């Protein structure tokens, strides 16, 4: 039972971490809390459904579907990121943080309908990839290989981003921009390009999260709504702008949810938001402080 | 010439700071600072950057708590109080960079200032009654700002903003007014007329005025007492003639050492 909860929780935490990582990254660099992040998740899921579907139609090997999902995430990022960051957000740079949240809220509304217009209102099921990696036997219980692979991907993403930020030259430049865009600019950094890159990475991660979970859910309108609020809870608990925070936050939320679902279902949703409220009340910067809370 | 109003020596000083000390890490911002100010005095605080003038102002207005020492206002100990409580006890200040509300009109700004000093803020009494507006306009006229009453603060030129900042501080009829570099950011030929306006507006008020100044001409003309700071310590305290001739002041402040 405990193992089930653990694996269940960690699996949930994995895709949640991938999504939250993108959200926290965008906040860390651009200081924008992006409500539409969940919409990019949805776009990733829909795109994956489409790509996998095309793969099946073209009778490419089933294993290709995994590549298709990755490509879907890349496609979403390549199209949506420049459009959003350059075409929309840039217009409002320099404005109040809450105002930018509202801009992203407007974007969320727009993208809700865009997905409906492109993909229709009916749900998509793209469950074949889920079977692809078979099952893993652990003791008496059998676990789906896909879930375990998802954990691996999440860990890989986290490590990659961490390593990229802390161990590469470009990463150090990004860190400089996070610390102070003005100083970075005065030292010759192309801050605008850093913003674009960070945002694109953020969108990619959201879309990847969506693409990878597409086989596990029914992809339909409204998918983004739940993801938005849960990923917000994660980054608030973990601390806005912190990678470790996103990881720990995702684990906490994932495990709390798994625990609640298996032992005390009445508490499931409630617990996540209580945690979010408690953190905001007692330690608003989150568990891993990156920014000073706006508090008097 | 500034109007000099000395209170009787028997009354408690408006402000009595004794033994104030404050450190920020390795930086000594205040070292055993003791200053008494009587009602109606016009005192200028001079000193180089980092000498401790603004730290003193911040401590007196409750923004900073001294590490050691006492501050009393009219005999009452206010050392531990914050800006709001100290304001309620008759202290007001203006700011080197005027602290205003950009989207409000000049008139509304004064109305807000007057209301804040009144105590409880009524949730139904109108803010813009004729009586209040008249009082606000009267105050603005004393600073020659009447013509700007309907303009929005964001549209005002720098000198006007400074005057408004000071006018707002006066709404509560304070007994101690601290002006933080009232003429800074104002062009040289505007400084003296501006100080004239300010001092004229203050002429009728039994308020002690401390102003932080860098311009020795202004200091000489408008204050009857000069307190010089250096390295967190008070190095001179006397009439402008005395203070400006002081050896240490000449070396560390005015830079005219022989």
């Amino acid at each position, binding site marked *: 039972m405990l193992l089930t909860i653990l694996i269940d929780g960690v699996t949930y935490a994995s895709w949640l971490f991938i999504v939250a990582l993108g959200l926290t990254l965008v906040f860390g660099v651009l200081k924008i809390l992006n409500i539409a992040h969940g919409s990019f998740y949805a776009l990733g899921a829909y795109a994956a459904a489409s790509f996998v579907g095309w793969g099946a139609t073209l009778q490419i090997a089933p294993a290709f579907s995994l590549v298709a999902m990755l490509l879907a995430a890349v496609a979403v990022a390549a199209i949506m990121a420049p459009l959003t960051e350059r075409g929309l957000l840039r217009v409002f740079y320099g*404005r109040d*943080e809450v105002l930018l949240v509202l801009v992203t809220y407007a974007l969320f*509304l727009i993208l809700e309908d865009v997905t409906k217009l492109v993909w229709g209102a009916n749900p998509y099921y793209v469950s074949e990839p889920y079977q692809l990696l078979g099952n893993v036997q652990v003791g008496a219980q059998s676990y789906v290989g896909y879930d375990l692979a998802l954990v691996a991907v999440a860990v890989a993403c986290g490590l990659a981003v961490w390593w990229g930020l802390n161990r590469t030259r470009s990463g150090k430049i990004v860190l400089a921009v996070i610390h102070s865009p003005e100083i970075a600019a005065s030292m010759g950094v192309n801050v605008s390009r850093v913003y674009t890159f960070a945002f694109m990475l953020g969108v990619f991660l959201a879309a990847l999260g969506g693409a990878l979970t597409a086989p596990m859910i029914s992809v339909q309108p409204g998918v983004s709504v739940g993801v938005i609020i849960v990923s917000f809870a994660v980054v608030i608990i973990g601390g806005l702008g912190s990678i470790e925070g996103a990881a720990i936050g995702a684990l906490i939320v994932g495990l709390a949810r798994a625990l609640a679902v298996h032992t005390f279902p*009445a508490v499931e949703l409630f617990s996540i938001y209580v945690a979010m409220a408690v953190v905001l009340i007692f330690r608003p910067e989150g568990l891993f402080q990156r920014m000073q809370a706006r508090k008097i | 010439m500034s109007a000099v109003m000395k209170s009787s020596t028997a009354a408690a000083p408006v402000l009595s700071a004794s033994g104030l000390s404050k450190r920020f890490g390795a930086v000594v*911002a205040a070292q055993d600072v003791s200053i008494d100010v009587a009602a109606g005095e016009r005192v200028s605080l001079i000193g180089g950057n980092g000498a401790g003038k603004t730290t003193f102002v911040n401590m007196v207005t409750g923004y900073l708590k001294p590490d050691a020492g006492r501050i009393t206002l009219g005999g009452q100990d206010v050392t531990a109080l914050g800006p709001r409580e100290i304001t309620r006890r008759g202290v007001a200040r203006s700011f080197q960079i005027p602290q205003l509300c950009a*989207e409000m009109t000049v008139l509304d700004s004064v109305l807000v200032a007057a209301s804040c000093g009144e105590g409880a803020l009524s949730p139904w009494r109108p803010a813009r009654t004729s009586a209040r507006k008249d009082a606000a306009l009267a105050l603005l006229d004393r600073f020659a700002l009447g013509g700007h009453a309907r303009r929005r603060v964001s549209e005002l030129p720098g000198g006007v903003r400074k005057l408004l900042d000071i006018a707002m501080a006066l709404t509560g009829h304070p007994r101690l007014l601290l002006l933080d*570099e009232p003429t800074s950011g104002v062009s040289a030929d505007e400084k003296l007329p501006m100080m004239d306006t300010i001092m004229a507006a203050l002429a009728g008020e039994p308020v002690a005025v401390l102003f932080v100044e860098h311009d020795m001409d202004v200091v000489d003309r408008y204050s009857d007492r000069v307190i010089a700071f250096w390295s967190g310590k008070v190095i001179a305290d006397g009439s402008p003639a005395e203070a400006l001739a002081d050896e240490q002041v000449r070396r560390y402040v005015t830079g005219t050492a022989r």
Partner: protein
Amino acid sequence: MRETSVRRTVAAGVATIALLLAVGWMLPRWLQFLATMAFANGVVTLGIVLLMRGGVVSFGQGMVFAVGGYAAALGSNRLGITDALLLVPAGGLIAALVAAPFAPLLARYRGIFFAMLTLALSMVLYGVLVKSSTLGGSDGFNVARPTIAGQAISNAASGFAMYALAVVVTGVLAIACAVYFASVRGLVSLAVRENELRVEYLGGSVRRVMAGNFVAAAFLGGTGGALAALSLGHIEPEFSYWTRSGEFVFAAILAGHHGVIATFVASLLLEIVRSFSNLYFPNTWQLALGVFLLVVIRFLPRGIGSLWLDRRDRDAPAAGAQAEELQSQAPARNGTTLPGGAA
């Protein structure tokens, strides 16, 4: 500037109520219902506008909306209190009481953290409501038609009766808000929005103003919730969901923060757009709303852009040569904590 007086505001308000009642009498039933919902939502939005005047945006108004709705619904279903004239104010009062313990806490938060905390609280309530089977779980439950002043309402009369109830209730609250906005505290709220440090230095208690605003907004939200629940004949946890709170914020932005009337006009417009769009453009009305919101944010400085100052206009106070405020040029400007002073 016109001399504001409480009496004049009340008179104008009463006249407007009378006018709306007269007009409403002649409207077709579906339009009466639409207007009723617009007024109910408008009151909730008014709460957000009130908070925005103090410089904070609540993303959790759904919480008090739901509390008011459930209070009225439970009062009717479980306690047998059917009079709307009791249920509606009760909804507002109970919502205010629920919000009151949180008010001093929230009075210390600004910007994103205020938004997130209000959001979190509303989602906690949502979580509780969804899982509570006694309250109907995620489906909620139905509410019987209320009586008004002891009189039962017939089917035929219900359209106008609920409309009239909504008009009177929101009219009274709108008058109260108009008086508040023009009051001393209302004006100081606007100052707090722009420079709370200065307000403190002038002797005004910022925390008291913010806490008071929060409770007032809760009362408004709860009243709107009670009205909505009684008019719909139904209550459900979705009242507290974040997307519902988002709708109220949306309406508040359209309205701008200067006018009470603008709030109801915006609410009515939104209600009309929502109804028609659901019928004819189900897949594009959110898109239209989103675009419209962007246009408003971008191009209507008086109503919207002035809600948030570009913080680069604000210089560090009390510092001068001292505390160097590194004005960050990140895309979003966050309010920095109060600067300390170093000599």
